[in-house]
């Protein structure tokens, strides 16, 4: 833990201020794993790679809880981890999968009707436009520190843009392209999540992330969890 004494800007005498830097495990590991898991299931189904129109009723809970709640937890821990990209990216896609899960849940209970694959679905197409804008913004933000993260997010942003066009036009061909791009983004996401985890666990670069420097965390190895790295 590093703390730095800060000069008070005021002339008034008062309590001394210190900046406390508290290390946490990288929330991006959970975030990328949750994002990749949701994308690989929904993307491959969206691409008509498997299943029927009724299958979303089986994978709703996974989309809602893993793609939604799991990613949201990662996003909120991203603030403590000072990971602005992780917070924005995973928070946005957590909300998307929570909402998509709710859509399929309401369709399963016959409250609403969801268009089948290959037919126009303007509302979801519109959503994917804005998800693409947000994802390309976070991708550009990730570029200087995480080139592989940029690759994952760029692929995801492209998939969202093509998915938007596919749903607005009702084109099953473009849906296939978008779905497999989501699967590709999932693959890159798993890679980034695994690399971040293995880097810290092994104490060296296990899977290259094309960024400079290796981690050397401050710890007291005989201390409790939090004081040492791990449990």
């Amino acid at each position, binding site marked *: 833990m590093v703390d730095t004494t800060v000069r008070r800007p005021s002339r008034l005498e008062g309590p001394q201020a210190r900046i406390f830097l508290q290390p946490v495990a990288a929330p991006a590991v959970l975030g990328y794993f949750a994002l990749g898991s949701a994308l690989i299931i929904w993307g491959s189904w969206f691409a008509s790679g498997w299943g029927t129109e009724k299958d979303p009723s089986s994978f709703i809970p996974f989309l809602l809880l893993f793609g939604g709640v799991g990613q949201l937890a990662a996003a909120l821990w991203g603030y403590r981890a000072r990971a602005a990209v992780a917070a924005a990216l995973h928070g946005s896609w957590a909300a998307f999968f929570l909402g998509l899960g709710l859509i399929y849940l309401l369709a399963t209970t016959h409250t609403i009707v969801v268009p089948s694959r290959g037919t126009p679905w303007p509302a979801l197409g519109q959503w994917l436009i804005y998800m693409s804008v947000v994802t390309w913004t976070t991708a550009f*933000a990730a570029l200087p520190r995480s080139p592989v993260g940029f690759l994952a997010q760029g692929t995801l942003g492209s998939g969202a843009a093509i998915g938007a066009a596919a749903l607005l036009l009702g084109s099953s061909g473009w849906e296939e392209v978008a779905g497999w791009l989501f699967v590709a983004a999932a693959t890159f996401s798993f890679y980034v999540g695994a690399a971040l985890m293995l880097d810290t666990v092994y104490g060296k670069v296990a899977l290259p992330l094309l*960024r400079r420097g290796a981690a050397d965390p401050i710890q007291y190895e005989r201390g409790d969890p939090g004081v040492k790295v791990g449990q």
Partner: protein
Amino acid sequence: MRTQERPLPDEAELEVPPARVFLVPIAPPVTLGLFGFFASTMIVSTWLLGWWGTPKGSPPTMFEIAAMFGGVAQFASGLWSFRARDYIGSALLTMWGTYWMAWGFLQALAANHTITIPPLSTPQPGFAIWFVPLALFTSWGAIAAIRENVPLFAVLSTVGAGSAFVCGGFWAGSPSWIKLGAWLFVFGACFAWYTGAMVLLEYSWGRVILPFGVIPKLMKLPAAANVPGARISAPFEYALGQPGTRHAP
């Protein structure tokens, strides 16, 4: 039994424990909140303007993500804004987050046929009244944002004005006023994306990428914040540490 009274200590002789102020850096929460606001506001406003969809056919599959992205995600970023010591963000992101959750709740009741939402040309004072407090606190936020930066002021002033027009439109059953408000919301949403991206890129790149739109002497940031490439922050970091001790991916 009589208890022995202890003499009161002289307060001046008491040893006071030293107080410390801990400043804990976090990632800027405003980005996620503004992205949620941007996406949800764009999708509903463009639908109100008739750019896509049908009046009755679209909301049933539109409100869920709005309630989550504009609602839950924006609300959460508003709560984290307390840790960021951000008065505008903590109040307004949280309030707009609750609005989107409430709007989603209303649409869910309609989807379930529990209530019926009338067309825009029918007066709806029960919904119009929502926008009175929204217009008021957003406009107060705009006044506060005059000390921050032009893009944030643009977000809050257009959205505050848009809320007033939408309020009048729903109250009177006037689609024209609603559409005027929706146009202001579209501009506000675009400014929200710009503001969120501006903060995120400066934080991630460590230098200004999108200009902050600072009016010197009126606003808190230095004029350098308007120059792409300028460094306006110097975060405390242990470069080899775990996330939390440095900016993380």
